[in-house]
């Protein structure tokens, strides 16, 4: 079985301050790419959390198949610039064949163009099973897995949280539903979009693994290598980003102050609880 995983490297949004988020929001619209890039340029990069889960699930599937004497090859690729290289090196050390596709342009909020490249790369890497995260980054539409599956002509299962080998070259897939979770047996080829999996963090290769993998270079492809070449970015999108707005998730509240915990508890009781308790 040949498993390919498409992943994205994103800024570590947890490290952004409020003022940086405001700059990200100011980069709404297709023309705001430079503003968004500038706002996030100086934070470190991390795997997109859903893609990271997909990568670890792929490794666990390989291990589970190996226990059954079944062979599996793993490939991982990213539509990205050089910022993806440390991540590709990590994946090589874990046993993935790796590649990156230089998009030659901004593909943020351009799901159709992204999906076109992802699908083309998956076909080039000849993956029977394509795994990817169900979405990436704040404001992401989550459309890419569906568009990729459509381009590849494969069935797509979303909100995937677990993957195990089944009979033959089939897979037993666990996925989230509105009521809980369910399982389905899925034949290859297929596209699996990974959601909120409990297994969400990638294992870590040893330094010896990294040294052993260092001789291999990641394949670097450019968008124009593929038919269509991603030229549809933004101009061919069915929907255009026009604005980004930070969702205010703060809740109305009062900070109860006091010099000590006892003072704060007294203030909480006197100012906020006593009257309510008396009314009960």
């Amino acid at each position, binding site marked *: 079985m040949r498993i390919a995983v498409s992943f994205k490297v994103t800024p570590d949004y947890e490290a952004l301050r409020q003022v940086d988020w405001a700059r990200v929001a100011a980069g709404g619209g297709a023309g705001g790419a430079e503003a968004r890039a500038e706002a996030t*340029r100086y934070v*470190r990069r991390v795997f997109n959390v859903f893609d990271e889960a997909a990568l670890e699930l792929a490794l666990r599937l390989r291990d589970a198949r190996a226990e059954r004497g079944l062979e599996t090859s793993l490939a991982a690729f990213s539509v990205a610039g050089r*910022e993806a290289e*440390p991540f590709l090196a990590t994946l090589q050390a874990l046993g993935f064949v790796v590649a990156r596709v230089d998009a030659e342009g901004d593909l943020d909020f351009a799901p159709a163009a992204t999906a076109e490249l992802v699908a083309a790369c998956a076909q080039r890497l000849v993956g029977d099973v394509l795994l990817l995260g169900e979405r990436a980054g704040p404001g992401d539409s989550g459309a890419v897995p569906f568009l990729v599956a459509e381009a590849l002509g494969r069935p797509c299962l979303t909100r995937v949280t677990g993957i195990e080998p089944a009979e033959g070259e089939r897979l037993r897939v666990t996925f989230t539903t509105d009521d809980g979770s369910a399982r389905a047996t899925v034949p290859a080829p297929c596209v699996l979009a990974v959601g909120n999996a409990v297994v969400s*963090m990638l294992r*870590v290769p040893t*330094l010896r693994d990294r040294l052993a993998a260092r001789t291999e270079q990641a394949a670097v492809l450019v968008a124009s290598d593929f038919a269509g070449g991603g030229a549809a970015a933004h101009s061919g999108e069915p929907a255009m980003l026009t604005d980004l707005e930070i969702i205010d998730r703060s809740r109305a509240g009062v900070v109860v102050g006091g010099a*000590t*915990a006892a003072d704060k508890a007294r203030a909480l009781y006197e100012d906020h609880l006593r009257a309510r308790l008396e009314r009960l």
Partner: protein
Amino acid sequence: MSLSREAIVEGLQRIVGPEAVVTDEKVLVESSVDNFRKLQNIFDVHTLPVPAAVVLPADAAQVAGILTWANENGVNVIPKTGGTATEGGLESAVPDSVIIDGSAMNKVISVDPYNMQATAQCGVPLQALEDRVREHGLTTGHSPQSKPVAHMGGLVATRSIGQFSTLYGGIEDMVVGLEAVFPNGETCRIKNVPRRAAGPDIRHIVVGNEGALCFITEVTVKLFPYFPENNVFLGWTLKDMKTGFEVLRDVMVNGYKPSVARVYDPGDAGVHFSHFAEPDDCVLLFMAEGAATVAKATADGIQAIVDQHPECTQVPSKYIETWFNDLCWGPDKILAEDERIRQTRNVNRTTEISADWSTINDIYQTAKARILDEIPDITMMGGHSSHSYINGTNMYFNYFFNVVGVGPEAETEKYYLPIISIICEETLKRGGSIVHHHGMGKARAPWVKDEYGSSYYMLETLKKAFDPKGIMNKGTIFPI
């Protein structure tokens, strides 16, 4: 004959009242360890003796009562406040210990902007004190990574250091006066004066005692003016640590005091700076702070020094500023790290030492090479220098390994202690100190005599004098 657990609880309840004595089993089990057994904590595996009780005294008088009673009855006590210790100093090494938790003593007693000092009880979180003094436009200057959760008593007891120490000093430079209670119940107050030469400086008996001599109940620390608007960030990449150490030395010897002065080796730089550093790059970084003219002069001086090293390539300061803004570890980051460890069984550990300029690079290179050669399953091995002095610097070894083939309870034996052993050996061979700022705890106590040499006599005599019955935190500093 030692007291039973029930008798211990009754004895404590008579002193502080039942509501201040905790005997909940879950609390007792969790209180038997500190971050030295991080992996065991995460997997809820507990192998150490369970304390008999956690007691929360309300004031120094109750601490004196507890210690007097414990001394009379031979009960081992473990002083604790924030619980962020990393070297096993808070572990209950013997059965039926009592944890004296000072976190209920959490008042900021005074903030004195005119005399530039603040007084806080031992259970005040450093972040809380820092927030209080910031209201006056001041700072404690003390910023260990544990700032959001560490408490003042523990910070003084472990002789802690903060990320801005090159400017503000370590805790030993910040403590003005303090109050501490000794095993015989004697409560001693060292008054707040700017300096004194009335015999030896007895603050240093208490600062760094790690609960092996006394219980710290109150501290007074210096305050400093706070000018964050003047912060200047500088950063470079370079290819070798030796050059990095040389630059740090030049900066210190020429009298500059940046608040942050660090050089990261490629392994450690890869953890933090892979978005601008190549895989084989070291990263050299500084922050200058203070009054505008001071910050500028410091930054200009450092720039001139580094400009003499063409092998250093400057990077936009925003990279360093962004890294700086994300430095401290609050409960959210700690929980996220716990989850990462739980899923991957990949553990991050650190060991910090100090040495003079002529030996630090040798210690770093040799220890690192030995660890890579002798220890299995290493996923990252590196480190950085982060606290420099005119006569040397520290080396903060930072390393990750996968725990393979053994349970969490065996992680320290298979990986952590062998690595600590290599670092301590290579440091001692070259005359360095095996502990720069984390404290000896119980983890490095086996090397205490090698660390002190002939001066061990002085340390041992302090222990015999103040804790003749050996009830204070058995196993910490002095191995059992």
